[in-house]
């Protein structure tokens, strides 16, 4: 156990050195957060498929309960129940388009995690930084519960619980709880909890900030205790269902799965659920008494309960949909929390975009019209006025607009187009448009994955540490 504790201290020190300019100390936040005894309890596992390069290298690390797919290196790090999903990494021979540059990829890209502590994180996508094409790095970083590191090389950062860094190279930054950042490249910034920031320099800039007092009800984190609030209670209440899928070797699927769809071995599917063609249900997703129409997907850490999704719906990493009816092509962004009630259902019209980190939590029935952009906190019908706009009207913005706590500047048209193109790409990548012989995506490629488990030293100074392991074809 000594080595594990030394490793923890080493990581904390490295992160604090990077964050000294912001006078941010991660030590009180993370010490004792995950008891070291807990870190020796769970096995780690990795997937093998013929569709993804296999190259895993683990050195001087704890990997408790974590999952790996693709080309991944982990050195001097603590990974607790995290998903490191390398199924979208660039491959040797690919070409990366950046502005006017067409850059050849010389070797398979690797997710490289060093001197970092990740708790229940999702790491996915690929590096969008033209300077580090073949290395999607995460270094000297502490990242809290249910944070998403999505296509974002990260160095010297603290990421709060339920935060997301998306398509952004980020250095020496603090990202508060439930903050979402998609800004290309940033450094030395302290981003407040509940900030939703989407920027493309010289094109558009979107920012929304949650009222702190209301956000605290959903997620609150300070030194001395684990994250608290509705989000944590919600996932904790369903923890037991996941314990079963991780303990049992052969899992029976309670519903029929079409040949073109994929249900991950480590997802939870409850009875009365209908899975349509080309549907993808990723590991650690939870679906109960719901219907997922053709081409819909439920990504990692998603919960879809008592809901109907008409088809081609993206439910991005960590999003939760409860007691809701979603029309076709509705996009629900990262970590959004959409909660209707049995007698107060939430209806979202087709082609609407629910921005990442949106909370819709209602006690009376509510309908979001078709083709709308929705952001921030919505509790009543009145909140729709300040927290949504039709995509058509938003596209007309060419200077700036402020609605409540949302500020937008730049080209609304570019912003909407960027979102729509990205949604189309996600559906394509997930296999939503598979037609029997063309447009294969994750839903088709991830059907047959073999899983192997690895375990740490059971006792002694190295207790909890995994031996150096290199897994290759």
């Amino acid at each position: 156990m000594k080595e594990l504790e030394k490793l923890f201290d080493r990581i904390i020190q490295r992160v604090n050195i990077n964050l000294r300019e912001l006078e941010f100390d991660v030590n009180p936040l993370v010490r004792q957060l995950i008891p070291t005894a807990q870190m020796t309890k769970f096995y780690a596992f990795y997937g093998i498929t013929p569709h993804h390069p296999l190259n895993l290298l683990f050195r001087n690390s704890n990997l408790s309960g974590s999952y790996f797919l693709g080309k991944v290196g982990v050195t001097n790090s603590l990974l607790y129940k995290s998903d490191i999903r390398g199924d979208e990494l660039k491959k040797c021979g690919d070409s990366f388009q950046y502005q006017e540059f067409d850059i050849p990829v010389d070797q398979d890209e690797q997710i490289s995690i060093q001197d970092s502590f990740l708790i229940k994180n999702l790491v996915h996508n690929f590096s969008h930084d033209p300077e580090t094409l073949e290395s999607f790095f995460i270094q000297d970083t502490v990242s809290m519960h249910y944070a998403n590191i999505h296509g974002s090389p990260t160095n010297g950062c603290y990421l709060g619980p339920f935060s997301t860094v998306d398509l952004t190279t980020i250095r020496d930054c603090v990202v508060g709880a439930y903050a979402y950042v998609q800004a290309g490249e940033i450094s030395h910034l302290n981003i407040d909890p509940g900030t939703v920031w989407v920027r493309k320099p010289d094109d558009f800039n979107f920012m929304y900030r949650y009222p702190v007092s209301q956000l605290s009800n959903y997620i609150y984190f300070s030194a001395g205790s684990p994250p608290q609030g509705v989000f944590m209670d919600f996932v904790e209440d369903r923890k037991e269902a996941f314990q079963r899928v991780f303990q049992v070797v052969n899992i029976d699927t309670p519903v029929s799965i079409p040949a073109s769809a994929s249900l991950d071995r480590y997802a939870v599917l409850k009875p009365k659920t209908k899975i349509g063609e080309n549907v993808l249900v990723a590991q650690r997703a939870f679906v109960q008494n719901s219907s997922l129409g053709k081409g819909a997907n439920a990504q990692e850490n998603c919960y879809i309960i008592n809901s109907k999704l008409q088809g081609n719906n993206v439910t991005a990493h960590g999003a939760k949909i409860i007691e809701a009816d979603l029309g076709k092509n509705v996009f629900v962004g990262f970590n959004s929390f959409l909660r209707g009630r049995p007698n107060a259902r939430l209806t979202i019209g087709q082609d609407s975009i629910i921005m990442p980190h949106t909370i819709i939590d209602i006690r009376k029935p509510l309908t979001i019209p078709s083709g709308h952009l929705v952001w921030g906190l919505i509790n009543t019908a009145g909140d729709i006025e300040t927290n949504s706009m039709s995509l058509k009207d938003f596209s007309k913005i060419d200077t700036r607009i402020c609605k409540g706590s949302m500020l937008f500047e730049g080209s609304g048209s570019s912003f909407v187009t960027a979102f729509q193109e990205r949604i189309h790409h996600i559906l394509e990548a997930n296999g939503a448009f598979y037609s029997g012989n063309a447009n294969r995506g994750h839903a088709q490629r991830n059907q047959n994955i073999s899983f192997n488990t690895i375990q740490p030293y059971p006792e002694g100074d190295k207790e909890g540490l995994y031996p150096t392991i290199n897994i290759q074809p």
Partner: protein
Amino acid sequence: MKNYKVKELMVPIAEYATVPETATLFEAVLALEKAQEQFQATRYSHRAVLVLDKNKKVVGKLSQMDFLSALEPQDTNLEQIRMFKQFGFTRKAVVLQQEEYLKNSPPILDVYSKAAKNRVTQYMRRPTEGEYVNENASLDVALHQLTAGSNLSLLVTRDKDIIGILRLADVFAAVYHSMKESELKLADGETE
């Protein structure tokens, strides 16, 4: 060009607006108004109030800018909005968000009323090392000190005591008159 001494240009402290450190912000403003009325003879009005401790030593200065800043709503959210420039927003966008936010803020008269009752020490600035100048220093030295520190005034010292205040306006006037005098002499054919 005549090289003045600081003591020739300063306003003696007895003629300057001062308040004790127990004064409120409103009392400081009243003192400033009174000093201005009594100082009609000069072309330049007072722009600051000096704050004195019980031994009549200067412990701080409240400028017009400090006074106006005191009336700005003290609000974490507003401070965060002012930081939006670091996230790539233009000044116009920041102002737009600020206006939107202030729609739901307390009426400005309430803010004035609250600030007026607060102690002046809450808003004054303590003089820094570069804000002192000796009474026998030359105009050149004072000029350099004002420009280097972007100061609007300097505190004039005799030994350890502060005996007056040297204002930017007085220095400007002295320099301007000297320059004008010198140019006129040159135009009349005089050589230096």
